[in-house]
């Protein structure tokens, strides 16, 4: 009798197994359904293998002849990322607070959230193309593109941090007769500061990466260089630029993640 009960317990209840099986079924069905739409042709990798080998060989050795020019443009890319992020942080603070349920009433936070959603929904490349038309070719268009997109992202992250605070210190401040702004400055900001700094640094990292591509639509920086040399089939130079980008992004990532650890 006892052994019969024990063997029944050894495997999970049939209901759980069925759900698991169904989940796997759904995953495979989705992958199969997307196969033809994405024109997946694994054989092409083998049949065109020789062509790809030749193509890859063109990249090496990298040509660093114009490295001063590449480095200058890389620094401009950093400048774009710095200003795009800085402006975004400044705007994300009020917007983030207005998005938070525990700060603003629903009739304010809902419209502001939708506004931030739309900033976030559209990729910075699209914004870059629009701003190139509006303010002309060059880094400023890139700054504006990163600024709008990052504001949307940071406002959401900031507001989530605000919604997770401990309400009791805020009540302590309120009990002294403080007004809403004072409650925010003394009760909320000190609590969310570590998270806000961490999110801002993380977005700066991502913006350095994004700033390298917004240039491709003419919004300044290393992206412009990259786009020109790829179109001109200068693959050795392309390789050099890509190596510079990888080095820069890696350095920024390492430094920023070290900094972020200090604040958490």
């Amino acid at each position, binding site marked *: 009798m006892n052994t019969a009960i024990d063997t029944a317990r050894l495997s999970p209840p049939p209901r759980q197994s069925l759900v698991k099986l169904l989940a796997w079924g759904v995953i495979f069905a989705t992958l199969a359904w997307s196969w033809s739409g994405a024109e997946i042709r694994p054989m092409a990798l083998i049949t065109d293998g020789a062509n790809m080998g030749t193509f890859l060989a063109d990249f090496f050795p990298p040509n660093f002849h114009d490295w001063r020019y590449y480095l200058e443009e890389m620094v401009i890319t950093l400048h774009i990322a710095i200003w795009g992020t800085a402006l975004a942080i400044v705007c994300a603070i009020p917007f983030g607070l207005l998005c938070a349920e525990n700060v603003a009433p629903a009739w304010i936070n809902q419209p502001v959230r939708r506004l931030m959603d739309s900033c976030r929904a559209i990729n910075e490349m699209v914004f870059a193309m629009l701003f190139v038309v509006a303010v002309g070719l060059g880094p400023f268009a890139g700054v504006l593109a990163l600024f709008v997109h990052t504001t949307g992202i940071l406002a959401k992250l900031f507001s989530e941090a605000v919604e997770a605070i401990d309400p009791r210190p805020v009540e302590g401040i309120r009990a002294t007769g403080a007004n809403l702004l004072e409650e925010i400055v*003394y009760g909320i900001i000190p609590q969310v500061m570590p998270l806000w700094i961490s999110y801002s640094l993380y977005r700066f990292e991502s913006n350095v990466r994004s700033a390298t591509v917004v240039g491709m639509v003419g919004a300044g920086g290393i992206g412009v260089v990259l786009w020109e040399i790829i179109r001109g089939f200068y693959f050795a130079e392309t390789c050099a630029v890509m190596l510079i980008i990888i080095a820069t992004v890696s350095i920024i990532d390492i430094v920023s993640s070290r900094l972020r650890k200090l604040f958490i």
Partner: protein
Amino acid sequence: MTKAAKVMVPAIKVTRLHKTFNCCKALDGVSLDINPGEMVALIGASGSGKSTLLRHVAGLAVGDSSTQGGSIEVMGRPIQACGRLATDIRATRARIGFVFQQFNLVGRLPVMTNVLTGALGRLPLWRSLTGLFPLEDRERALEALTRVGIHETAWQRASTLSGGQQQRAAIARTLVQRAEIILADEPIASLDPESSRRVMETLATINAEDKTTVVVCLHQVDFAIRYCPRTIALKKGQIVFDGPSAELTPSALRDLYGAEADELSAPIQGSASFITDTALAVAG
């Protein structure tokens, strides 16, 4: 009520206050008067409505709107009436110091800044938002910290202090506020006996020296008897006793609370070391 009390404006006047949470009544027609300079204990078992009452007096919660006339006045100024907060609530709140069970300090700010927030109610916005507190307020904050005995912690983060120190910092905040009334909501419920005694001692000193009205919510009757001349006892949202604390003998408590009386007087019988502690303190 004494003759003098009739001509004085009461420090706190609560009239027929009702509060309903979902289904249950937390406050059921509470009316009371507290005179300036009194030190009053508010006792009752968990869920009797004493904390709820205190939060209503500070305007941190609003009473039911359906009942007519439920109102609270502090120093003759309205706090709330018929479930609506007064429009000048912030100005009145600045005159009321509130001490919370969980201290409600901002853990990442220095003790000094936490104590200085007591001045926010009277500072112009440009000063409070930039954190440029006037010298006078900073002197007052340090003086307040010295008075409650934790001035050496002034520039530490509040979160690094012990519970008892945090609660004394919270009391220092009400001193910087120049509060005319201190409402303390279970100020010693999260503290050890020695810290509890020091916190109650501090509140009693402020009451005696500054003539500040103090209303303190307590769980243990022995503290009420020791520090507060007057006690108001609540049971299921109603006042069941209002008079001299000395009248609260164990048998009187049993009459009021029945089986719940044990919960209120437990520390007296429960902790022998506590009795010696307080006995020594009193003797010393």
